[in-house]
C-alpha cells in the first residue's frame, strides 16, 4: 500500500521488476546468439521501464 502512494518507491518497484525481466530475457537469448553477435546495449532506468511497459501493453 505504501508503495502505491509513494511515487519514488513505486518507480523503484517498477524498475526492479523491469530489470529482473530484462536480465532474464537476456540470459535466455544469450544461449541462442552466436559468439561475436551484437548484443543490445544495457538500457538505462527509463529505457528498461519503457521496454517492460511496452511488453505488458502487448500482452494485454
Amino acid at each position, binding site marked *: 500500500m505504501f508503495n502505491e502512494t509513494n511515487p519514488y518507491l513505486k518507480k523503484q518497484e517498477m524498475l526492479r521488476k523491469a530489470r529482473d525481466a530484462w536480465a*532474464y*530475457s537476456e540470459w535466455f537469448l544469450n*544461449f*541462442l*546468439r552466436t559468439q561475436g553477435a551484437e548484443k543490445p546495449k544495457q538500457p538505462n532506468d527509463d529505457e528498461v521501464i519503457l521496454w517492460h511497459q511496452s*511488453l505488458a501493453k502487448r500482452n494485454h
Partner: protein
Amino acid sequence: MAPELSKTQSLKLYEPNVNEYGQIKAAQTPNEWFVQRYPLAFNNHGSPFLDAVEVLDKHTRQTFPCSINLDFFAAVLGGRRDLGHHVIYYEPEMQFYFKDADNIYKSTTQEKLAIQYRAVMMKCAEMMPQHVHKLNLFHEWRSEKVCKAILQRAKSILAADSSFFGVSSPHERIAGPEIHQRIAQVFAQQLLKADQNSILTLSQAYSLFNQFAKTKELPVLKRSQFKSMICEVIKEAYGLGVRNDLMNTETNKQMAGWKGLRAVELAA
C-alpha cells in the same frame, strides 16, 4: 480382473497453489515453477511433470517429479511470449530462428536450443526447496536422449512455413532472400514508371537496383538472381512481361527488357 491400484492420489499433475486471497504463491514445485513462467505451453500441452507426492506431516509434502511432458518442453523452447521471445522452426530451410531483442529473427542451432533447455531445467532445480527431489531435474531430463526427443517435437510444435518470412509478412530476419524481394517491390514502385513510349533494359534496371540496394546497405545481387526476381515483381506491379527482342538502335543488338516502362529520375 483389473489390477487394484493403490495410492493413485499421490500422483499429481499441476494444480495452482493459491493463498487465502486467491493470489498465486511463489513456486514450491517444478510444476508450479514452469507453469508460472510458461502459461501458454501449459494451456496447450498440459502439466510439465507428473509428480509423486508424499505427505510427511501436516505441513510437509515431499515432491518427486517422476515423468516429463516432452510436448510442454518443446513449447518452452518457443520462448516466453510475455518477454517478447519467439523461436520458430522454419521448415523451408529446416532451420531454427529466434527473435532477438531488436525484433529481427536470427538463425540458431539445435545444439544451442538444447543448451538453453538444460540451463532452464537447471535454473528450476536450483530454485526448488529442500522437499523437492532433484535427481530427474538435474540428471535424467538433462540427458542427450531427452534433449533430442524434445528438439524433435519442437520441429513440429514450432513449425513455420514459407509465409512466415514471406514478402508480405511483418517478420523480418537477417539477410534472408526476401529482403531483396521487398526492396525490389519498393524499387518498382518508387523508381519505375509506366510509359508507353519508353523501354527499360534489364541492364539499366540491374544497375539502378544495385545503386538503390547500396543505399539500403544490402549486398549486390547476382544478375541472374536479379532477373528472376525483378521479372516477377514488374509483372505483378505493371502487368508487363520481360521481352528479349528489344532492339538497341545504337548497337543494333537485341536486348532483354520491358517495353512501356521507364526509370524515374530521383531528386538529389
